[in-house]
């Protein structure tokens, strides 16, 4: 296979292998679209002093299965034996990636599920009406359940899971290193400074939740702090796992690692790159917890976009409330500098959809995309099996029972990064 990168050697080639079936076996392997996992090998990868026991199970699309207490999901990827630099700062060294080749097991995810304090209940159904609302409803999910070691701090348990799940994702993808890919995606690098196509440079600002342990996001393995300033990153770095979730709040408004790896705004920009725009880059920005830093970060992000020569920007968030204020301030600051801006908002319009939709709206930049109403309720059918826990506390019911839940509880259903296809319409 010839592996050529585009635009002056700054691109990334994605070798995409479609996972069409999964199995459990003695050896981890990938062959003819079937991903086989060896529980013994998985245990060896996941073993950590903070975990006394781990269990792995497959949950596949269409199964009468519910995954509760979902913590994070990772798409199996690797750049070579031992990861080849994938997930920099966790599996690979903390260095920029996004060049060369990356193997992707599309249609699969490694999913951590179970009780951690500060985690709000997050539910994935593999069948029924909630399945199409979550990215994990369409993937073969290797669910990692766990028992904390006695006396282990919760922070250590979470760290062990995060590292283990990333390492396991890299290990699974390694099984496809010798396989012929189903698709080869040549991803462009950042546009050259003297690109003369006359197309607008459109960038993404991706706000990351920065509220400390259990509510943080990692960039190159480092927690992106609430006093950090916005920083520019090559979108191809996201494909190689430079951004990893450590965020357990707001299940429907969560950006799992899987979604950062497949950043939907970047994907939408790439799809039109060279056609009617240039995909100009990603700005990672903190979501500070105080007004002073929020104002500083918004003003600074706008100046950064101006200095980088962006003509238009799409802003996204993680979480609710404060996160809306961050977006509104950024939108207004960008438009004040003459940079047209659109942001993705989930609506919080109440159970019947009649309440005000947005907590803090922008004042001057008024173009918003709705990713659906947080409060609207869904009826989920009973299932045969549940992973991640025995009960769904917010429904006050055993996890396998039929239940009614707000959309807010369905994992990534209102994806702030724009993964989903939900929106709101007026029902006259």
């Amino acid at each position, binding site marked *: 296979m010839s592996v050529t990168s585009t635009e002056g050697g700054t691109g990334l080639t994605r070798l995409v292998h479609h996972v069409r079936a999964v199995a459990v076996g003695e050896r981890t392997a990938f062959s003819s679209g079937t991903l086989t996992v060896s529980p013994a090998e998985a245990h060896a990868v996941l073993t950590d002093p903070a975990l006394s026991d781990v269990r792995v199970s497959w949950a596949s699309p269409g199964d009468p299965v519910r995954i509760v207490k979902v913590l994070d999901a990772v798409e199996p990827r690797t750049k070579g034996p031992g990861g080849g630099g994938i997930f920099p700062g966790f599996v690979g060294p903390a260095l920029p990636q996004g060049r060369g080749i990356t193997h992707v097991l599309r249609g699969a995810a490694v999913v951590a599920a179970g009780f951690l304090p500060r985690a*709000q209940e997050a539910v994935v159904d593999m069948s029924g009406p909630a399945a199409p609302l979550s990215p994990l409803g369409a993937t073969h999910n290797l669910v990692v359940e766990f028992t904390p070691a006695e006396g282990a701090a919760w922070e250590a348990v979470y760290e062990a899971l995060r590292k283990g799940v990333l390492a396991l994702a890299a290990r699974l993808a390694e099984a496809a290193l010798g396989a012929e890919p189903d698709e080869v995606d040549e991803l462009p690098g950042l546009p050259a400074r003297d690109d003369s196509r006359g197309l607008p440079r459109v960038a993404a600002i991706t706000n990351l939740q920065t509220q400390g342990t259990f509510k943080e996001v990692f960039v190159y393995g480092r927690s992106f702090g609430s006093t950090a300033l916005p920083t520019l990153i090559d979108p191809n770095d996201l494909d190689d796992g430079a951004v990893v979730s450590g965020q357990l709040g707001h299940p429907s408004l969560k950006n799992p690692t899987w979604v950062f790896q497949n950043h939907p705004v970047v994907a939408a920009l790439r799809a039109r790159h060279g056609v009617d725009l240039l995909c100009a880059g990603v700005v990672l920005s903190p979501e500070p917890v105080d007004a002073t830093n929020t104002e500083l970060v918004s003003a600074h992000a706008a100046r950064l976009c101006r200095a980088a020569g962006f003509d238009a920007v799409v802003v996204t968030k993680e979480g609710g409330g404060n996160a809306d204020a961050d977006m509104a301030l950024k939108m207004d600051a960008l438009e004040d500098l003459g940079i047209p801006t659109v942001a993705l908002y989930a609506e919080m319009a109440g159970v019947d*959809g009649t309440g005000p939709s947005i907590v803090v709206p922008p004042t001057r930049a008024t173009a918003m995309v709705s990713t659906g109403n947080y409060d609207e309720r869904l009826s989920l059918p009973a299932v045969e099996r549940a992973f991640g826990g025995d009960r769904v506390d917010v429904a006050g019911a055993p996890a396998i029972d039929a239940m009614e839940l707000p959309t807010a509880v369905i994992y990534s259903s209102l994806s702030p990064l724009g993964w989903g296809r939900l929106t709101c319409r007026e029902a006259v």
Partner: protein
Amino acid sequence: MTARVVHYINQFFAGLGGEDTASVLPASREGAVGPGRKLQQLLGDDYEIVATVWCGDDHAAGPDVLPAIMDLVRAAEPHVVVTGPAFTSGRYGLACARVAAASAAAGLTVVACMHPDNPGLDEAGTAPVVASGEVARQMGPSLETLAAAVRKVAAGEPLAADDGRVGKIPRRNVTVDQTGAERAVALVLARLGGDREATEVPLPRFDQVTPAQPVDDVSTALVALVTEGALVPDANPDSLESARATRWLRYAVDGRDALPAGEYRSVHGGFSTVWANEDPHRILPLDVARQLEGEGVIGRLHGEYLVTAGNGTSVGNARRFGVEWAADLRRQGVQAALLTAT
């Protein structure tokens, strides 16, 4: 056939008095009362206001009285339920909206009438609301709008902005072909091309809160502590939600000078509660309030505090909590409240 109309109003418009009678319980009478008489004239012979139901504002805004009001409404076997006009009166508007919402939920034909700034507006659920004037001086034109709306809803026709309809039309989740990200990129290109109007989310309308007048003499005032910081007795005995709260609770502080760590905790899901639980006064400053009470700076501290969790709470619910808290505190003679927010 004559359409049977049941009209809901408050104690003031029922002719029972103002704030002094704001605590009268739900009651009803055959026929039109107060503004209902003029409404009857405007509606003409095809409609008959068969009963008028009323309730004192302080109760009507409370949580428990709606079933009793609805029993009176249903007992009159209405074809159409009409509530208001409530103008900008908060508790009255809330009651009109709730009676309308409950009627709609029960499958009855209904229309409510209040000013667009009335805090009750968002409580009307799926029931239509038409605009009244701001104050009762505008009763005449308000009733004309309302009468026209009654005829329309009775005929099964939808109400639109031209009919004076106000409030939000329900927004429902639908699935579309493109992802949110794809739509966002298309929208930003449209904006770059000069389209300044396109959006999927209309800008919400927020009302401005006019602060109450300062308390004349706080050294004689009864002062309450209220909080959205989700501080509850340690076992969370009433299961306050940590997010998306749908209700509020009350806990006694009579005879207490402090809220010891371990006996109280915050179940708020929107921030790290470590510091709050280390010293619950960081959420509810009972210690300092008692000190001020002892020094005579404030008259007396109210015997209980009101609490909810302000985290992912819909604006509609938050507004309702505020109106209910105000009514509850007023009933108990509280003159000032200290609201701690997180």
